[in-house]
């Protein structure tokens, strides 16, 4: 659900990073935060446990620039990936305009990816969204590790709708902005379609 403010000439959209525990959702946001000009970003808020696991969400407001005199702002959120935070994940998806699914490329994490992907579909459906119709991008993260699944195999299992995907190494920033750009573009085009 975007917020179009004709008074302050702003368009605000919400993007949620989803995926299994430790797949790199927070790392994506941290990289974006580090690599964005100070005037384009707000504070990166992390509601995390003492061991730096996301407890509720991370939040990063980004101002991308202007289109036709309207400031375009994106609010990036992550969900807590750990299975038992299911209730919190649902809340964060409320009013989402676009979703990034961060998948962990390691062989032993494939099952967690699939589980998280199903969880995403169920939670979206509960809010009346269909994943197939929502702006959506997948990032196959951790491509620098040795024990990884070939990207095309991952794509076959996780990317049923043929949405844009990117290989990523979130710690070094590989694929991070490409992923964000792909989803942000879809969000803006979706807005255009609806108005």
């Amino acid at each position, binding site marked *: 659900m975007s917020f179009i403010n004709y008074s302050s000439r702003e368009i605000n959209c919400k993007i949620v990073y989803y995926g299994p525990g430790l797949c790199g959702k927070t790392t994506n946001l941290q990289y974006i935060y580090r690599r964005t000009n100070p005037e384009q970003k707000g504070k990166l808020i992390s509601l995390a446990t003492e061991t730096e696991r996301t407890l509720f*969400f991370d939040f990063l407001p980004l101002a991308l620039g202007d289109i036709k005199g309207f400031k375009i702002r994106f609010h990036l959120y992550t969900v807590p990936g750990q299975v038992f935070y299911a209730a919190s994940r649902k809340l964060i998806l409320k*009013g989402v305009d676009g979703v990034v699914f961060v998948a962990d490329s390691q062989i032993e994490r494939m099952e967690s990816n699939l589980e998280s992907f199903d969880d995403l579909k169920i939670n979206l459906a509960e809010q009346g969204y269909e994943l197939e119709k929502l702006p959506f991008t997948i990032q196959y993260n951790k491509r620098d590790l040795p024990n990884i699944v070939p990207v095309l195999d991952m794509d076959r299992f996780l990317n049923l709708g043929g949405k844009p995907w990117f290989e990523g190494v979130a710690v070094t920033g590989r694929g991070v902005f490409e992923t964000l750009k792909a989803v942000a573009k879809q969000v803006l085009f979706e807005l255009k379609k609806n108005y």
Partner: protein
Amino acid sequence: MTGSDLVMYEEEFRKIDSELQKLHQQSNAKVVFLVDKNGQLIASTGETHDLDTTSLASLTAGNIAATGGIARLLGEKEFTILFHEGEKDNIHISLIGQRVILVVIFDGRSSLGLVRLRVKKASETLTKIFEEITRKVEKDKGEGKLDESLFAEISDEDIDNLFR
């Protein structure tokens, strides 16, 4: 999208802004702000200069969402008021028309009773304004007015340019 995008027009924004200013004065509050349930700041008034209102808005919405989750687990529809008491400052959060969140930050110069009373009055007015906005959006969508004003002209290139 789900058809429930929030649109704010100049006219209604001014009405909201003046209602918030009135509430700010009458309740003797430090800061008053209005947030959409998804965490986006709609308007604010008072001593906001050294406050990170964007983060506050997002966290307030998270707070309301979490409390709403608790309510449903208990079989309640929603808890419409939250109140946090601090050493100096207090924060009063209330849901308006299931859609927006009204936040009042106040200190010893005011009191919870006064804030509650004034918030109740302001809520009624604000609810009406948001009903007006919903009607207006439906009407504009029907007439295709929103098209001409903004989105029809956005090109692939405009969007690409954002990421240079």
